[in-house]
């Protein structure tokens, strides 16, 4: 007999989907902003000698991507591709992934800075509700969880019959919630703020600590890559563990337990 439980409250569901929209917009508008100066330097001021990533178009019709001095031809994807208006042009990230699709730094920045606030509101809501409902303590990774990380992974890989004993969240869940929610997401906000001259004037040491303005831009981009990685893993898990039930739960709040699942 399968049973249905009420798993997600309205606040969780609304902030989850709001966060999905905000994250999509922040990535797309962020790539639009990146396109205005498609280089990342490990330095304070721009410095080609410390260039980590550069996307360009050496000649019409050719796109190249240079990572740590190694150049790859990436025509059609990076450096040269659709201009969003039916033609092709030199641009780092292609039109189909940027907001707006055509080159428009001014509006890209507007979108980015509006949805940055939405993302921050989602994050604060999430942390406050985790504190209020007592989940925060169950969610944070503790030193005692570290030896259980591999046994949990081994269980997922079917190398082990039983998961290691754990509370509401298993050690891998705790590790990813802690890393994403309390390390990477805040760092993405902080590194983004460090790019702004107004914040730099208020909090000089922050930008200095990050290695300077261009370095902050590199960290900000790296943070986005890590969040995209989390998004990919999350999506994989949802799609492989009963996608209809999972989606339904995040929309209506009601989750159907499978036969061996315990209520949690």
């Amino acid at each position: 007999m399968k049973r249905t439980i009420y798993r997600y409250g309205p606040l969780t569901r609304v902030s989850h989907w709001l966060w999905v929209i905000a994250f999509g917009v922040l990535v797309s508008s962020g790539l639009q902003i990146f396109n205005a100066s498609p280089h990342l330097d490990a330095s304070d001021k721009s410095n080609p000698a410390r260039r980590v990533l550069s996307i360009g178009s050496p000649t019409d019709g050719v796109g190249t991507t240079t990572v740590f001095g190694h150049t790859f031809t990436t025509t059609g994807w990076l450096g040269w591709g659709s201009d969003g208006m039916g033609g092709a042009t030199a641009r780092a990230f292609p039109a189909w992934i940027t907001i707006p699709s055509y080159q428009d730094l001014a509006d890209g920045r507007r979108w980015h800075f509006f949805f940055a606030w939405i993302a921050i509101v989602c994050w604060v809501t999430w942390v406050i509700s985790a504190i209020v409902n007592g989940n925060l303590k169950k969610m944070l990774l503790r030193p005692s969880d570290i030896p259980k990380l591999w046994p949990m992974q081994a269980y997922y890989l079917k190398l082990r019959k039983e998961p290691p004993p754990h509370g509401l969240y298993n050690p891998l869940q705790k590790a990813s919630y802690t890393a994403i929610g309390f390390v990477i997401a805040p760092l993405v906000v902080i590194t983004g703020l460090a790019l702004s001259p107004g914040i730099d004037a208020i909090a000089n040491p922050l930008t200095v600590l990050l290695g300077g303005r261009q370095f902050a831009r590199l960290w900000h981009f790296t943070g986005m890559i890590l969040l995209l990685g989390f998004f990919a893993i999350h999506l994989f898990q949802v799609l492989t563990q009963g996608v209809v039930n999972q989606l339904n739960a995040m929309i209506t709040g009601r989750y159907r337990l499978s036969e061996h699942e315990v209520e949690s």
Partner: protein
Amino acid sequence: MKRRIFLASAASLLAGCAPIGTALNNNMAFMRVIYSAEKLDEAVIGTRGLAREYPPSAVDRNFRVNGFATPSDALYQGLVADDFRNYRLVVDGAVERRQALSLAHLRAMTQQTQITRHDCVEGWSAIGEWSGVRLSDVLALAQPRSDARYVVFRCMDNDGQGTMYYESLDLHQAAQPQALLALTLNGAPLDPAHGAPVRLRVPTQLGYKSAKWVARLELVGSYANIEGGHGGYWEDQGYEWYAGI
């Protein structure tokens, strides 16, 4: 099968943002909401603190030239030809004492030197050593009237289609001690490409605020009736008037 579904959903979720976003980007009412974040940013960050000052070793000797082309009209070329002897920085509008300051006058005033980073809205940064007169000292000579709220910088360059460059600061931003009317870059008088003879430096905001080829400071109560009405050339193209972020 599952892998294909996974890859397809991941790609379509990301690629779905762009067309929807682009469609909304043309919706005026929606974009008014999006643009409203600027007010929040200005309220939260504002203009406080000082931009970091660097040691001389940090200076970019070949400071990047960006922005509009050096003015090529007869008026500007005439000023260049006689070494800006006929140049006057006009300070007028809502002021008690209109000023027309020669370069010699500006050079005789107290000079400030700053080695600061120029942060372009495009994302790049460069460091230069700038010397010149504090904006607040020049404004003090003209004595802004009580109805003056903004100083509008009228420049000698244009976008190639006849629209002249201009910028504006409110009087709080103009009083910021690093807001400088720069006369030199890296120890030499500004060359035409870098905004000769006078350019603005506002290191606590993005580079487009730091107008080059400044000819006139006009004090106004509102910039709503100037050009596109948003307080600056790039502001009229959708960029933020508050350029601290």
